């Protein structure tokens, strides 16, 4: 069985995001890029499937800032192959464009299951898994929390609201948008990542970049703060006092507490 995990880089959301002069993209110059957390979940579930079935795991990513470290980390965790698709335009790219590049590459590969994160923080025009699946004519499922696969069939749990999940059988090949692996993503020791880097082994392939499909993005802007959060300033002890006062004034805790 062959599994392909599509991974990608995103700006670290802990940082402040500023707009560039076009007002249609963020200023990427000083940002740190990190691996999409849901792709890491997809990779973990794929590695667990490998352990259970001996499947081969190949990770693929578009060439974006710091993607090498994500791909080498995947190799260090146990992926068999890592491929970087090069020649990508800089800046924000629609998910439809990403899907077009990935689908063109996938069309040349053999695989049973394609897995990726359920979403990415800049998916303005929909999620990758279903777009790739629709392009390739494959069945798909989003918000997947468990995958078992053998003999050309995957059994997946697809989460709906309130913790309810549908268990479905999907005839392979298929594309899954993974929400959570059945165990937290494993940790790759830095020595192993270094080993993987020294061994090289990152394959490169030119991306088939087609003219972009852009949703009619007019502008980006910071959310209007409803301005209702009153910020409590001072030392921790003072702020703790204020919070307790607030709870007390609403009758939520005893006056004496």
């Amino acid at each position, binding site marked *: 069985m062959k599994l392909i995990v599509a991974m990608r880089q995103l700006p670290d*959301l802990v940082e402040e995001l500023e707009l560039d002069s076009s007002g249609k993209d963020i200023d990427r110059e000083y940002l740190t890029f990190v691996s999409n957390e849901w792709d890491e979940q997809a990779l973990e579930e794929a590695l667990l499937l490998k352990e259970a079935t001996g499947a081969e795991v190949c990770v693929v990513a578009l060439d974006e800032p710091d993607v090498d470290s994500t791909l080498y980390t995947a190799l260090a965790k146990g992926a068999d192959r890592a491929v970087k698709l090069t020649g990508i335009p800089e800046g924000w790219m629609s998910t439809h464009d990403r899907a077009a590049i990935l689908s063109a590459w996938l069309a040349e590969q053999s695989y049973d299951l394609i897995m990726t994160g359920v979403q990415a923080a800049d998916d303005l025009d929909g999620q990758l*898994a279903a777009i790739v699946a629709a392009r390739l004519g494959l069945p*798909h499922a989003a918000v997947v929390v468990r995958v078992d696969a053998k003999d050309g069939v995957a059994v997946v749990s697809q989460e709906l609201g309130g913790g309810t999940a549908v268990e479905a059988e999907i*005839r392979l090949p298929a594309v899954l948008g993974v929400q959570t692996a059945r165990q937290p993503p494993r940790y790759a020791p830095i020595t192993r990542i270094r080993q993987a880097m020294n061994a090289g082994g990152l394959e490169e392939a030119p991306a088939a970049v087609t003219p972009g499909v852009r949703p009619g993005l007019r502008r980006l802007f910071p959310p209007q703060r409803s301005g209702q959060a009153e910020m409590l*300033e001072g030392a921790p002890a003072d702020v703790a006092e204020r919070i307790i006062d607030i709870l007390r004034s609403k009758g939520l805790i005893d006056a004496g507490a």
Partner: protein
Amino acid sequence: MGSDVLVLAEHAEGELAESTFELIGKARELASAWGGQTHVAVLGAPRAAGALGGADVVHVVDHPAVSVYSPEAYERCMLSVLEHVQPKLLLLGTTTPGMDLGAALSVLWDAPLAAYAVGLVAEGDAAVATCQIYGGKLMAEVVLESERSIATVIGGSFPPSPGRSGGAGSTCTDEPPDLGDLRTVVRGVKVPEATGVDITAADILVSVGRGIQSRDNLTLVEELAGALGVPLSASRPIIDQGWLPKAHQVGKSGQKVKPRAYLAFGISGAPEHLEGMRDAELIVACNTDAGAPIFDVAHYGTTIDLFDLLPELSARLGG
């Protein structure tokens, strides 16, 4: 060119989701601006059509393959309803079905898609969507001006349509499309295990997120919750790590809570989390990042480190 708006109704065992009524209310507003009608597609729950008084036309497609949500069967049914109705705009929730179908139909029905919409207005012939991006840290204004387009809308963005009783203007039962040879077959539905703690019933919730860093550090919030005599709730990453049971998760795929006070520690306020708690009467948030979206819904906020604040709170309440 079409001027109608089509909504996909979501239901669990025939019970319609609140978000469906939010979409219908918005659909009515847009359809009336364009001089069209509001259509609702109901798959697999014919009886639910009776509660869709807000719609002009309800399209019922009934077949055993769509009694429970399944992407492939739903997709085929939606393509057939879209073909029949030819709407200008299709509205879906940013839910599991919406994430599957919005993205796939945008390819298969060949229509641009605006995802994670929280605002939607008619501007002449176009629809303009305001969408959350980067975990709610920025907003994007997207103009949908094609003959056909799709928006997936975050729950709670619009007021629900009042029409819940009485049937729609008209109901038609659409013949299901060919649902033979499906590659996806539902085997069953699982509900989360009860743990004896009902976070939806609590007056106060102490809620914790990834800022807590480790399972061992949970004792800090446990102490505060213990001092207040209230349950602990959490954002999804805490549940996914296995640090708390699923029944304690607040948000889109967890519980929707409306306590009198929600105390959030180390939670960024991703859209999926806000969906579950934004209606709390009082929200107090502690997050070292002053730009965290949780402060958009909080009434009081502090950027003090939770590791400094929690012991101070517990010490004062510990008695």
